[in-house]
């Protein structure tokens, strides 16, 4: 590998499948993360960029059925994958039950971590509809909140689980 062919040009073209739709990406630089492409090229700024190193979870998306940090996915490598962002949880823009519960429980302060949490919680409840507190904590251990102290976030998840069980 010669260093003289370092790629700084922006001429990549590829297609990503996001929220059920094929999205063309044009004139991209090869090194762009999925987070960058979602926010800056595909008009999907719901996923947030905070740490850009996979430590905070604010960029969480679902990719091929798993919650991943989109800041650590090379966008150009994600062709052929099925990607779902926070925007895709409610195509018509209305609040999901998880989002409503976060508001009801007071689990949103600055709101920056919230999209990442919403995606992670939706994913958790699909895998484990009736999670124990420990399971909730483990599932959300990749999402950091600097405002709420997590208590109300935990409550929000428990509210939704109970609602879905029909035991509220």
């Amino acid at each position, binding site marked *: *590998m*010669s*260093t003289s*062919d*370092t*790629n*700084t040009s922006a001429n990549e073209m590829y297609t990503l499948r996001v929220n059920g739709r094929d999205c063309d990406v044009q004139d991209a630089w*090869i*090194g762009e*993360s999925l987070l960058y492409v979602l926010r800056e090229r595909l008009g999907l700024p719901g996923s947030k960029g905070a740490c*850009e*190193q*996979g*430590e905070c*979870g604010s960029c*969480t998306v679902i*990719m091929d059925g*798993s*919650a*991943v*940090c989109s*800041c*650590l*996915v*090379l966008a*150009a*490598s*994600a062709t*052929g*994958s099925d990607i779902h962002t926070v925007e895709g949880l409610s195509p018509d823009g209305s609040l999901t039950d998880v989002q409503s519960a976060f508001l009801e429980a007071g689990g949103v302060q600055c709101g920056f971590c919230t999209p990442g949490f919403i995606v*992670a919680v939706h994913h958790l409840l699909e895998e484990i509809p009736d999670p124990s507190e420990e399971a909730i904590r*483990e*599932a959300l*251990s*990749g*999402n*950091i909140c600097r405002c709420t102290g997590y208590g109300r976030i935990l409550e929000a998840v428990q509210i939704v689980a109970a609602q879905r069980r029909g035991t509220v």
Partner: protein
Amino acid sequence: MVEVNLHGRALSTVISLRQVTELREWQYRPTISRLTIGAGVPYAQMESGEIARLVPALSQAARTVGSPQIRAAGTLGGNLGTCSPAGDGLPVLAALDAIIHVIGPDGARDIEWADFMVGVKKNSLLPGEFVHSVSLPVLEGWQGYAKVGTRNAMVIATASACLVRDSDEGLVTVALGAVGPTVIRCRQAEKWLASTIDLRHGAALDADIANEFGRRVRLEALPIDDHRSTAEYRRHAVGVLATRLLVRSFA
């Protein structure tokens, strides 16, 4: 990607392995009692299920990796490529004398764990080579992994240890992470233990031996002071982990 995102790492040619399904497969061969795991198998797949049943220490280590999001993406290939002494999977590979299967321009070769990690973030891959898979023995007997960090998740090891008890052979192996320029196999402590007590099924372990084992493990650690911890604490911690894992192996 962290280097690209944060440090502006320049990229030349990028080859994505995401769709090379062979790297994401694993296979158990009962006739030779070996488990082969592709370099691209995510840690999430090692946390439970068949891999966890076959190599429990690996599942325990996998569960300590980062977060669910990181476990969905992180792999043994990644741990091996980076070769950080704190890599969560590496003490397990060391304690089990894993074999690293490598492919390069001159063909395939096998590298024994002891020859693979040669320094901090230094492995013995030659230019053009990549890790294809790792194979591990599937053993009878207890094995476990323990990690000390500043919080319960999303944390790099301050100190870590893997202990494997091979009941058939009457051996214990113990490997330490984050306390040296490489992952450290405590071969002196292992030899001492094997010569001191009967390590096959049914033997009993007394507290003095367990503590002496921890003391001897401490002697083989090579920890440093850094922004995360001190050499003194790390040395203390690995002794505690080794004793604790040994006691659990006899419980």
